[in-house]
């Protein structure tokens, strides 16, 4: 009995370890690479003999990288806030109210994210210029809706549907308007869903490249991925791998912090004790 439990534990932790290695090693490798310079990049060594911290300094030389990070933060936060807000209200309608054409609408929303990005690029570019949002973070925020909204709407709708109906009825009887029901009753219970979709949307916005490259012009409007892509060596063909890796490591850290914060919201048993039966 005990033995079996122990064995179970051990197995479990082995599994956990395997996962960590699998996910983290490449990142570790990124760090290692970020500490290599010149020819060291072309050899395999699991820890650089003489770490070249200069790569990190190099990232901030030659371009307003701090500014780029700031841009990314602004854009991502705005995108998450906006799409979560829009999706939350929409998901209530789509998830808990039955009206004709609900399925159709859901499908259309989904359809939006069925075109390859490069296909919508030109149209979006025209749209952005037409709105006068070219080389403006607002333009990015707006255009990112095209891939964050369908996703958030669908996920939140699914989760919204899972909540026990008696709760909503109780609120209705208490005289709560749909808006109150969403914000005061459902919102708190959607914690995990919101945190998750929020995170995913945030990262999606954080990592987006094509739009960011096309819709911004000046260096201090660029976002992180573009900035990284624009890091080049002394000449056209050289790929300054060390710097790129350093940059990537730098921009990954804030995300990890974010995750650490948000994952606290991902907790279970929120609806326990709500209804009987």
């Amino acid at each position, binding site marked *: 009995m005990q033995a079996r439990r122990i064995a179970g534990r051990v197995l479990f932790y082995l599994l956990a370890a395997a996962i960590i290695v699998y996910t983290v090693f490449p990142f570790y490798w990124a760090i290692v690479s970020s500490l290599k310079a010149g020819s060291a990049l072309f050899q395999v060594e699991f820890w650089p003999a003489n770490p070249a911290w200069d790569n990190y300094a190099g990232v901030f030389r*030659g*371009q307003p990288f701090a500014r780029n990070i700031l841009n990314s933060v602004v854009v991502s936060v705005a995108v998450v806030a906006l799409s979560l807000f829009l999706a939350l209200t929409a998901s209530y309608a789509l998830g808990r109210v039955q009206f004709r054409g609900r399925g159709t609408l859901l499908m259309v929303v989904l359809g939006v994210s069925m075109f390859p990005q490069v296909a919508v690029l030109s149209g979006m570019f025209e749209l952005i210029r037409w709105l006068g949002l070219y080389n403006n973070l607002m333009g990015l925020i707006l255009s990112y809706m095209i891939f964050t909204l369908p996703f958030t709407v669908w996920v939140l709708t699914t989760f919204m549907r899972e909540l026990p109906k008696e709760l909503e009825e109780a609120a209705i009887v208490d005289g709560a308007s749909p808006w109150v029901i969403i914000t005061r009753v459902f919102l708190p219970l959607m914690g995990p869903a919101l945190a998750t979709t929020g995170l995913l949307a945030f990262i999606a916005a954080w990592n987006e490249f094509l739009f960011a490259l096309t819709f911004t012009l000046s260096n201090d409007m660029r976002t992180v991925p573009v900035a990284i892509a624009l890091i080049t060596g002394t000449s056209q063909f*050289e790929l300054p791998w060390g710097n790129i890796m350093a940059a990537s490591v730098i921009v990954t850290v804030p995300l990890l912090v974010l995750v650490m914060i948000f994952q606290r919201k991902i907790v279970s048993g929120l609806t326990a004790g709500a209804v009987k039966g």
Partner: protein
Amino acid sequence: APSEAVAQTETSTTISVSCGSVGIEFQVCESGVRAWEAATGHRVQLVSTPNDSNERLALYQQLLAAKSGDIDVFQIDVVWPGILSNHLIDLRDVVDQKTLDQHFKAIVTNDVVDDRLVAIPWFTDAGLFYYRKDLLEKYGRKLPETWQEMTETARFIQKAERDAGNSRMWGYVFQGRAYEGLTVNAVEWLDSFNAGTIVDLDGKITVNNPRAADALTLAASWINDITPQGVLNYSEEECRGVFQSGNAVFMRNWPYAWPLMNAKDSPVKDRIGVAPLPKGGEDGKPTSTLGGWQLAVSKYSKSPEIAKDLVRYLTSMEEQKRRAVVGGFNPTIDALYKDEEVLKANPFFGELYETFVNAVARPARATGVRYNQVSAEFWNAVHATLAGDGDAKTNLASLEKTLERVSRGGRW
């Protein structure tokens, strides 16, 4: 010096130019631009664009297709004039014929589309043949003249080295990934075998000929013999990686690799040399494909005259000399290859002068808008051949068919 005409323009306008991204390329460009600013009192905004030429082109097209004047002066690749000409203005009135003639003929012709000079040469580039001096000496081999020799020598040294325990040693690496770089390499092979350059200047599709087949067959024979299968996915940097870490005897690459491989932490420092690429057999000729960049002015620029003046200044002999000295950019002007200041900064400019002047252009001019498509079809065929998916003859044959279709019967 910048022409007074423009210098006098009272109001100072701001124009934006895209030259390179960050890095030396950017800095050198910037210093030049600043000088011009100082002289003319206009402001210039430097737009950094992606390093990968494909992405850069995509971005340009996006802007131009939308008739956006956000960038006035574009730095365009040697193969783009045909593609972009429609959005660029004629620069005939920027430089007189005399100055124009100072530039390499090949490049200038390449920049003329339907009698419009859509871009002015700025700096050039050409494929070089890097070799390991030390190894050649060690095994008493001489620098191979022809591809066949190269193959044999490479094979020999590779075997010897491996027997000596350097199990990773390979003979020859080049850019074999399915991208423009492969077209560049393959064009060199073909031309060195006198097999033409896919499409001749009159737009006739010449690629399907026995000599071309020989060239490709030879190249295909390298894979897994003297060349790692990996080259099928190598671009410039991967090649440099292999060569610089001492794992290859020969390499085809651009001049940029030279300073890097002679950096102090480089394992092959001072043990390498450069030469023109080998000939395709005794009756062949050493060829390298023309690379490099031009400057062009957008049709949608709000102040084209000022933009033109900037182009004039940046492409001028003085500026090109400065760039050659401080940045090691190959000038497009014959004279500068005899200028000792330049030679002092870049020793091999002299010995490789031939290579640069005789560099062969890709069939961009003839194929115009469709160059990319032609190139893609070509590199795919070559890539297939190298990957052993069909032999050279058949692949070239089908390539010819495809190109016929693309060119709508050679009319392009």
